[in-house]
């Protein structure tokens, strides 16, 4: 351990003097990410996904002087949803189509880019746009999932691929959009495809060699635990995709992963609980064995994915500190579970007028379904169902301040109509949509988005910030009492954690659908966010497009650093030859 710290220090020191250096790093460092307040090495900053930074330079009293320091074009008009990672002075970012870019995190000088190539038919299996949520890093490598379901390991130093593994055949509807998660010596990945009748799984690869270590299906085969919750062969196309990242508790040695909707959407065609779809599962990261599961929405018929990774937090409940897992769900509830065994502790609604259920059992958390709001395979529309399938809280990660016990939760207040097709119109074909329903989102008021602050232990909502359009960005909170997130009108903003007062905002040029981070280099604290409309919000409204990475610091860029970020220009051969002699 000690040796590692020394090494990390040496690396950082070198980076400060010259160009950023790329240093080795170990999975032990990732476990200790909380103590490393200056870097952002894991998707959720720390394995508990709190997205809370102990950095203190930027505070409510000075945030008004936050200015852009550098920006970078991500080179596409599609949605960007990634969380940047920062390690040893280098920032690793993904844009649309899993393009990976590495920058000098001080000044934006682009170090390298890597772009996978895809078949022109790939879009036929992408339900929700060519999005990607970020990379994972370990030692000398950067790991990224491609849309055509490959795991690629790139060299940190130059972005050259070292190895790649085909996770699955995308032609069967399997894609990948999440950020991989490093646990010990393994890269853990999930897949997308819940709208294409895939059978979900979580898989681990050896981080060095890329050799497959284990695969755990979220939907059990006959004879496996939970298989009695699937009639006939329905498990084969049962969904439960794993399209986001997870959480890891090193003390409990448990890996937590959320699962998606069952397939098809028509719940009456697969009567039973349909485990473990729309659930949180806890796995042994060494073997992949499922230790426990908690199902948010049994026999889901509303596309209420449970993929948003939980926040792990120790919370004082009834005088006792409980190891909890917090999750804000698409089904409209904020869940507090015991993360040691998956026991339900309590839940509160995040939106008003939830009507698919009359409430959750206070002991088990099981919803009492309002059957009138359950669409069936009968061609009859059911509306308005609240919340709509986008949630509640969709994929975007919330933040939790462990020092105040407050969670900052992006939510949306809207409704939907669902019309289930008749059984004869629902046929599974590999690689084709297997939803079995028409859907339509509906407005229920002037505003849709609500960023809410929730005092978890006291079960109290503290404040909310309304937004006319749905909120689809992740959240960052800091020790100094700031909350950062963005909206669909392009504003990246900072609110005071105590009051919800917006203290600063900046127009980024396009809707924000990604998650902010903060880091410190050479004594300066930076805040970074990706901006770029796309993904699900682009189903509902139009706006300026274009992926851009923005980085901010107090008072902007120091004059001596101006121009430091210029990158090497590759001149096109023969395009700018010297004026020929006459």
């Amino acid at each position, binding site marked *: 351990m000690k040796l590692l710290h020394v090494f990390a220090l040496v690396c950082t020191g070198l980076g400060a003097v010259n160009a950023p250096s790329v240093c080795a790093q170990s999975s032990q460092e990732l476990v200790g990410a909380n103590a490393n307040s200056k870097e952002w090495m894991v998707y959720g900053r720390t394995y508990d996904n709190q997205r809370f930074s102990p950095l203190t330079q930027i505070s409510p009293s000075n945030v008004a002087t936050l200015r852009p320091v550098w920006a970078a074009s991500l080179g596409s008009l599609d949605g960007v949803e990634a969380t940047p990672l920062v390690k040893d002075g280098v920032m690793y970012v993904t844009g649309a189509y899993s393009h990976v870019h590495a920058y000098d995190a001080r000044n934006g000088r682009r170090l390298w880019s890597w772009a996978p190539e895809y078949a*022109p038919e790939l*879009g*036929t299996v992408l339900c929700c*746009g060519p999005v990607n949520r970020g990379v994972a890093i370990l030692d000398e490598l950067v790991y990224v999932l491609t849309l055509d379901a490959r795991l690629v390991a790139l060299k940190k130093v130059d972005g050259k691929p070292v190895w790649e593994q085909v996770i699955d055949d995308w032609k069967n509807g399997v894609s990948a959009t999440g950020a991989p998660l490093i646990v010990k010596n393994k890269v853990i990945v999930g897949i997308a495809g819940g*709208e294409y009748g895939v059978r979900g799984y979580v898989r681990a690869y050896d981080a060095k060699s890329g050799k497959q270590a284990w695969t755990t299906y979220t939907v059990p085969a006959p004879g496996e635990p939970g298989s009695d919750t699937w009639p006939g062969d329905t498990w084969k196309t049962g969904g439960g995709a794993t399209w986001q990242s997870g959480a890891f508790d090193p003390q409990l040695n448990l890996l937590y992963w959320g699962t998606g909707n069952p397939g098809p959407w028509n719940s009456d065609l697969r009567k039973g609980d349909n485990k473990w779809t729309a659930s949180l599962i806890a796995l042994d990261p060494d073997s992949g064995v499922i230790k426990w599961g908690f199902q948010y929405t049994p026999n889901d018929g509303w596309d209420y994915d449970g993929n948003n990774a939980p926040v792990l937090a120790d919370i004082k409940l009834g005088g006792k500190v409980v190891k909890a897992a917090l999750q804000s769900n698409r089904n409209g509830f904020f869940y507090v579970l015991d993360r040691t065994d998956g026991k339900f502790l309590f839940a509160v609604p995040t939106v008003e007028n939830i009507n698919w259920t009359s409430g959750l059992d206070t002991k088990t958390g099981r919803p009492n379904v309002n059957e009138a709001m359950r669409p069936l395979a009968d061609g009859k529309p059911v509306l308005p169902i609240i919340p709509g399938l986008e949630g509640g809280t969709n994929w975007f990660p919330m933040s939790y301040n462990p020092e105040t016990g407050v969670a900052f939760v992006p939510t949306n207040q809207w409704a939907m109509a669902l019309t289930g097709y008749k059984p004869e119109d629902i*046929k599974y074909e590999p*690689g084709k*949509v297997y*939803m079995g329903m*028409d859907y339509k989102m509906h407005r229920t008021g002037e505003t849709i988005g609500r960023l809410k602050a929730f005092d978890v232990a006291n079960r109290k909502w503290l404040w909310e910030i309304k937004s006319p359009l749905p909120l689809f960005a992740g959240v960052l909170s800091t020790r100094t009492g700031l909350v950062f997130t963005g909206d669909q009108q392009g504003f990246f903003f900072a609110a005071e954690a105590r009051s919800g007062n917006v203290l600063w905002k900046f127009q980024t040029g396009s809707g924000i659908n990604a998650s902010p981070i903060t880091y410190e280099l050479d004594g300066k604290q930076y805040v970074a966010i990706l901006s770029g409309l796309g993904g699900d919000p682009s189903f509902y409204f139009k706006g300026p497009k274009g992926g851009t990475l923005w980085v901010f610091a107090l008072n902007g860029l120091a004059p001596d650093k101006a121009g430091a970020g210029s990158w090497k220009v590759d001149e096109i051969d023969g395009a700018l030859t010297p004026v020929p002699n006459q």
Partner: protein
Amino acid sequence: MIVLDSASGGGATWAWPQRVLIAFGCFVLFTVEAGAQAHQPPKVEQDDYLWQHESNPYSGDADAIASGRRLYRSTCYICHLDSGGRGPDLRKSKLKEKDFMRVVISGRKGTQMPAWKGKLSEDEMWKILAFVQAPR
């Protein structure tokens, strides 16, 4: 409401899709100038695709429209929804039949519209088009 032009009139009335298709490099396209084309057949029409039908054999065919509806649901709907979403409302498309088909076959570069060749047969695409053309 039939919003797609019939192919029987010949030439192109809208240059944009052609430019898009030229950008694909997949087809040699109509070269007729806008304005003068209404009664002229296109001078050149060569695709590297061998068409089974020159115009939609299923327009107005109730069975084909029903099956086109099912196909639309399992392919187009997720982006185009009933009246447009991430992709445009196809009923409002001004593309001529074969141009519509070309976009379906090869996709539309620079957008999220993928190539459906290999995934749908030409016959299935015509049925989808028949559904899109049909009054709803």
